[in-house]
């Protein structure tokens, strides 16, 4: 079972660790999902204050950081891998984080984001854009503005190695808290039965 403790000693970082803070460096990322998992994260409410005591939120859609930083301890990843930007970010996350957590059903299973997998990409884009109203960018091709979609949406663990899974659509705050507190305590994420249901 992967925990922060084993990962901290087990893997050597490329560059020297920044010595400034003893706080745990937490990141959250948003790939192909509805942001519901992040909303649920915010529903931790007053626990967010407790959390802020022990972590530095170094990257997140709710923090204005452009580049995924180095030396992250834990990254929660919401959403499935759906386009080339996600591929790139997923790869960076894996290289720069000690623990990567699939956060919510889309990251774990593909979920709603992957519903499009039943249709060939071409047909999908034609239906949504080309046959739709107005002048729209041609989809599918890389146009240097909108990231190109990959042919099939993938759950995160089919793209990079994932250390823990938090299912749920979205995972409710209790689940998130149970998982995050285990991670921060250096324990493996073992959610009780009621907290590991999909959907």
């Amino acid at each position, binding site marked *: 079972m992967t925990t922060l403790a084993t990962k901290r000693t087990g893997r050597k970082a490329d560059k020297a660790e920044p010595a400034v803070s003893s706080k745990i460096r937490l990141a959250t990322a948003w790939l192909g999902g509805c942001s519901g998992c992040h909303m649920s994260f915010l529903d931790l409410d007053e626990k967010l204050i407790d959390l802020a005591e022990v972590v530095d939120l170094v990257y997140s859609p709710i923090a204005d950081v452009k580049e995924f930083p180095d030396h992250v301890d834990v990254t929660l990843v919401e959403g499935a891998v759906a386009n080339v930007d996600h591929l790139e970010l997923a790869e960076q996350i894996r290289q720069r984080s000690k623990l990567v957590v*699939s956060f919510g*059903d889309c990251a*774990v*299973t*593909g*979920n*709603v984001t*992957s*519903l499009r*997998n*039943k249709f060939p990409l071409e047909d999908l884009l034609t239906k949504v854009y080309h046959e739709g109203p107005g002048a729209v960018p041609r989809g599918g091709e890389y146009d240097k503005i909108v990231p190109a979609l990959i042919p*099939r949406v993938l*759950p995160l*663990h*089919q793209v990079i190695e*994932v250390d823990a*899974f938090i*299912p749920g*659509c979205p995972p409710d705050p209790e689940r998130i808290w149970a998982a995050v507190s285990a991670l921060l305590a250096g324990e493996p994420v*073992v*959610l009780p*039965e*009621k907290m*590991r*249901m*999909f*959907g």
Partner: protein
Amino acid sequence: MAVITMTINDELVSGVEGQSLLSLIREQGIELPTLCHLEGLEARGGCRLCLVEMQSTQRLLPACTTTAQEGMSIQTHSERLVRYRRMILELLFAERNHVCAVCVMNGRCELQDEAAKIGMDHVRYDYLVPELPMDATHDKFAIDHNRCILCTRCVSVCDSVEGAHTWDVMGRGVNSRVITDLNQPWGSSRSCTSCGKCVQVCPTGALANKGSTVAEMVKRHDFLQWILDGREKKQWVMHNGGSEGRR
């Protein structure tokens, strides 16, 4: 009836001759998952979740179709069995398009439940993403093949309890599909009595009442025992020209 004695998880237990292993195991309060078997329907041995380990030969046998025998010794939750059950659940989730978040049975689905119970938190296999239809031609019910796990409880209940045999299976392997009549739209079926038994026994959101949306569908299995009991006790037989039914 003769009594038999056997060992389950190193505990001596006694049961009745001819009793299935599954019922004896459950009598001991041991939970054993079954996605194809349902009490009251004929045991089938298809989902392989209720496999137990014979201590003597190390062989795995489905508890639902195996008869308990004197002197037998079995394990129900060995490391190997739990590992295999998890793999079977993963295979099922990967086979069709089970998107729990947008399912009528979300929160009450047997497949979803079993995954949570065993701690199957992700699927290691490729999602096969087959293209499967829905049939909503029936007035009251609909079938979504994307969520069907081919347990064939619907086939069984329709044949052995309702006596209509509207449901059957076509194709084979991963291309198998449950069908109504000879693969005709359900709504046009002349054998279907619209009794809804198939919907009630379905473990997932494949069969549902029309009009129910995400997480709204509630299914009841208890009707099955109620009918079977009534049938055994001849509670619906007409006497003196009138009905002495249970109602």
